Each structure stands twice: as structure tokens, then as C-alpha cells.
């Protein structure tokens, strides 16, 4: 039947139900394990090939001289979390974790080495 207020029964029911949204940060939802969050870098597996820096679409990953060897440094300010570096790495030295709360106070503080 075509009437105004078709939703009223449902509205009445929902009025007494708990909301579906959550009060972040008091309540948190757990993201799936394979979320593309902050990356983890295993320096011992790195062979300094530079593929990650080459494929990075947003210049977040760049090679720097660390202890005499070329190592990737990830600047999360630039990162788009596409996980291409983890994909490109031949030795699986880069891994994406489910950590997504990456707010920080100053530019350049969120760096993964």
C-alpha cells in the first residue's frame, strides 16, 4: 500500500535498540588480520635490492645508507598502504600489520626502518 510513513513500524522497533555505530575510541572494532596497516620491516632478511623503493607509487619508501648498507626507510606520511613493497620484496622482509592508529604530532615522526 502506498502510504506516507511506511517505515514507522521499523522506526519504532529501532528506537529501543542499541545503536550500531560505536563510540571510538572508547569502543573499538577489531580489524581483520590481513588489514593493510603499518608495515613491519625485518632488517635481517633485507638484501638491499631496492625493489621496494622502485615500485613504491608514492615515494614513501626510499633507500638510505644505514650502517654501510642501502636500506629502505618508510615514511608513513607519504604511504598509501598499497602493500606493493611487501609484494615486491623477494625475501619477504616487509610485512603489513593490522596496526592502523598512526596519528602523530609532527611530520616525519611516523617512520618505519
Amino acid at each position: 500500500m502506498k502510504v506516507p510513513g511506511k517505515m514507522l513500524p521499523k522506526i519504532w522497533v529501532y528506537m529501543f535498540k542499541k545503536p550500531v555505530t560505536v563510540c571510538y575510541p572508547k569502543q573499538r572494532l577489531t580489524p581483520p588480520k590481513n588489514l593493510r596497516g603499518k608495515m613491519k620491516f625485518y632488517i635481517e632478511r633485507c638484501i638491499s635490492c631496492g625493489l621496494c623503493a622502485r615500485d613504491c607509487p608514492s615515494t614513501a619508501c626510499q633507500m638510505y645508507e644505514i650502517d654501510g648498507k642501502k636500506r629502505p626507510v618508510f615514511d608513513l606520511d607519504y604511504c598509501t598502504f598499497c602493500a606493493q613493497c611487501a609484494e615486491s620484496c623477494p625475501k619477504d622482509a616487509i610485512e603489513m600489520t593490522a596496526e592502523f592508529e598512526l596519528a602523530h604530532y609532527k611530520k616525519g615522526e611516523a617512520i618505519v626502518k
Partner: protein
Amino acid sequence: MGSFACVWNQMVRGTGVENIDPVLALIYLLIFPGVFFLFAFSLFTEYMDRKLYARIQRRVGPPFLQPFADLVKLASKEDIIPEKAEGFMFTAAPLFAVAAIFAAYLYLPIVTTTGLHSFNGDLVVVLYLLMIPTLAMFLGGWYSGNVFGQKGGMRVASLLFSYEIPFFLALLSPALVEGSWKMADIVSFQQAHPLALVVTVLGFGIAVVSLQGKLERLPFDIPEAETEIVAGPLVEYSGRRLALFRLARDAEMVVGAGLISVVFLGGPMPLLSLQPVYLSWALGGVIFLLKTLFVVLLLILIKSAVARIRTDQMISFAYKWLIPLTFVQIFIIIIIRYFGGI
């Protein structure tokens, strides 16, 4: 002070208490159930509106003091008057709106059968005072010098009659039942004949729907349709004046809902004569409050279940349905009265 006492004596005659202290009269005017209470109650109604609306939509909704915080925040912001705006009317419009609403409120019988001052025809005065915020809205929009504001002002003015006529007629129907234009008489009559309330159920429905239009809430929020003309008349308002307009809107909701609960639901009825007198006031106040909130709840339910309609649709809705139905209501009353039903 003497005049207050005089007014006061007149007012409390309904409950049979004489020679009240003028200090109490001041308290009545300023604190409860006067200006301060209206202020708090308006903000509470806004909170309830927002919270329930959010819950219906399965959101968390604002915290309890959010409307107050919004008001304070707005009041402390820069108040910008556009160069193109007509200075005096633009700045005065929100003041008119608030003043009219607060004046209308004082005539409502909240704790006893009378308001601050009761006289024959006070119902009509309240109705007229309730119209002023709408006019203020129109003037404010029109003189803001903004295209959207003017468009909104035009819409306010063109929709005015589509809800004012049914609202007036519907609210006068209980007066017809009783045969008096005095709210005190209506309330006393309803207290004596509770069954009279049933006669005006149709009028009650019409009044709630027209009040929705008067308050410019969904589905009748055409003058300030956000997705069409941004905020309509309020587009250029900021800071204190916007806060005042919002307060006027909230207070209008309270007074409108209160008026409906007075004339259709019996206001503070059932009134019990308790001793000391403030106990019976408190009881009356609580009952009035609950009835008002019930009307507000109806307004919220309407708001959340419909889409916004167009100007032409609203006008045709008013003239095709609302106004004929009010005539039906009045006709019913006349017939019942003719056959001496009441």
C-alpha cells in the same frame, strides 16, 4: 510589585490559594515555570529530538549537554553582518523571534489552569505570537542579501498559510467545544469533562502535522532544505544571532507542543489540590511536561519516517487534506453541540 501580586492573585484563583507572596510571582516569571525553565526545557527538547532521531537511525547521538554547548559555542563566535544585508531588520529578526516565543509561553497554563495572565481570547494571542518567529525568519532571510536567504524567505512566506490556517482552525476546535476563547476555561472544562478530549482527536492530529510545518521540520522543512538552498533564511546568520534563532526554534517547539497539550490533552490536568500549594504546582508541571514530551515524540516520529516534499506538494496537501479535515472536525463539534452531547 503590586501589579505582580495582582496578576498573581488572578492567576492562582483556579487553585483557590489567595494572597501569594510577590517574590513567588517573580520566581514564577523568571525561574519556574518562566524564562529559565523554558530555556532549559527547550534545550532538553532539542537534546531529546536529536538523541531519539539518532537512535532511530541507529546512531549514538549527542551527549546530554550538547545543545547547551552548541548554544554557548555559537554565542561566543564572531557575529558577521554581511555588507549586503539590511542592517536593522537583519539584526533585529532573531530578537523578535525569541521575544515573541517567550511572551507566548507565559500565557500557557503550565502549573495551574491559568498562565501568568488569563483573559478571554488568550488562545488567539498565543497563536499570533507563535506566528512571529516565522515572520522573523522571512524578514531575516529576505534582508540578508543572499540569494539562498531570499529564496528561503520567499518559501517561508509562500508556505505560511498552508500550515497556519489548519493550525488555527484545529486549535480553535476545542474552544468551540467549550465555547470560550480562554485557555483557563478550556482546561477547567476538560478537567470537568475528560471525555470531551475524544471529540477533538482529529483536530489533535491535524494540529500536530501543522505544527510540524510551522517548525519547518521534515517533511515540511522546505524553507531551509539543506540540499537545495543550503540553510535558507539562516544562510547568512552566524554567532549570537544564529544561536538566538536556534533557541527560538527550540522554544517554539516547546510552546507549540505545550499549546497542543493544553488545548487537546488538558494541560496540567488532572489537577489535584494538594497542600502546600507548590506540591500541586509541581505535579501539574510534571504532567504538563510529560504531555508536551509526548507531542514532541510524535513530531520526532513524523520527522524520521518521511522524505521532504516540494513546495507545490505541500500547498496542495494543505488545501486538499488538512483544511478540509479541520472543517470536518469543526462540523463534528457543531453537530455534537447541537444535539447537546456535551
